[in-house]
């Protein structure tokens, strides 16, 4: 990598995605930062990244919208190919399946899984000619263990794990490594309404994790020390699932 490597991160304006963007920028990456609606936080992140001397390209689009994905990424991919793609965009629409509306199912599956398909298809095609690259999907312990009230979310995250394992096999001979980082309870807005007093006893480390503990694993997986790791699911869950 003689040029400054680029990391493209979906759903990066807040939470884990924002932490990944900041850590990778500090580690020397230029950032393509996707977000959907949170323009203020995205703009603030860009300023922080640029203050580190790195470039940050803000990409506002819905990852599940094929036309929007193509319109945003095609022109950029004509100019440069990211070394890393981190698919972090995600939403929750929790509810018990018997009462779950079709919209809640579709929105969650479309953002996590169709988003990965739409962006991954374009980016992996571009990475082929470079004979290198790293793709990471941010899944969830829910996708590994299942979670009541999250049939849609768990299905989407489990789908990402299967997709990444398959893609890892497809792209390995081009030195493109594909892995999954699977967080457990991480201190973000997503867990603010959860009854932590009831859940934490299930976590052997007996605490929630931090976004930095997730972004650190992502940074490791992008580095040279992870050059022999592909098709793996790396849990960052305090021992909640082993």
């Amino acid at each position, binding site marked *: 990598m003689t040029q400054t490597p680029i990391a493209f991160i979906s759903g990066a304006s807040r939470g884990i995605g924002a932490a990944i963007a900041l850590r990778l920028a500090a580690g020397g990456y230029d950032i393509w930062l996707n977000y959907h609606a949170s323009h203020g936080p995205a703009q603030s992140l860009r300023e922080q990244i640029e203050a580190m001397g790195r470039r940050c390209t803000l990409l506002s689009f819905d990852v599940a919208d094929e036309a929007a994905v193509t319109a945003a990424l095609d022109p950029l991919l004509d100019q440069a190919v990211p070394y890393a793609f981190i698919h972090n965009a995600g939403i929750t629409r929790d509810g018990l399946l018997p009462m779950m509306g079709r919209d809640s199912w579709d929105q969650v599956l479309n953002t996590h899984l169709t988003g990965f398909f739409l962006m991954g298809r374009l980016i992996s*095609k571009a990475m*082929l*000619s470079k*004979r290198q690259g790293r793709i990471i999907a941010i899944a969830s312990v829910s996708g590994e263990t299942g979670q009541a009230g999250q049939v849609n979310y768990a299905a989407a995250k489990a789908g990402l794990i299967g997709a990444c394992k398959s893609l890892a096999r*497809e*792209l390995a*001979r*081009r030195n493109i490594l594909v892995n999954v980082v699977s967080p457990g309870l991480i201190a973000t807005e997503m867990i603010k309404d959860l009854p932590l007093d009831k859940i934490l006893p299930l976590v052997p480390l007996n605490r929630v994790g931090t976004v930095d503990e997730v972004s650190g694993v992502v940074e490791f997986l992008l580095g040279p020390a992870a050059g022999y790791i592909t098709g793996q699911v790396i849990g960052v869950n305090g021992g909640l699932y082993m």
Partner: protein
Amino acid sequence: MEELKEKLKRILIDEIKIQGMTPADLKDDMPLFGDDGLGLDSLDAVELVVLVQKHFDVQIADMEEGKEAFASIASLANYIHQKKS
């Protein structure tokens, strides 16, 4: 057509990165895929689709269509020529 075939050979060597060969080593009717030919694989086919679009502005819509075109350098040159004319 000869110019087109020469350009394709150059692309195969320079961008698909066929090892140990020069454009002069590539025969027009040499199969692109399989052990009897150049030995390209399925990912090479994807790259070739991208390169054909980039260099010739010809889109190969799906791999089924591409299969016939990718039989050899001559068939690919024919395919591009037909699409451009």
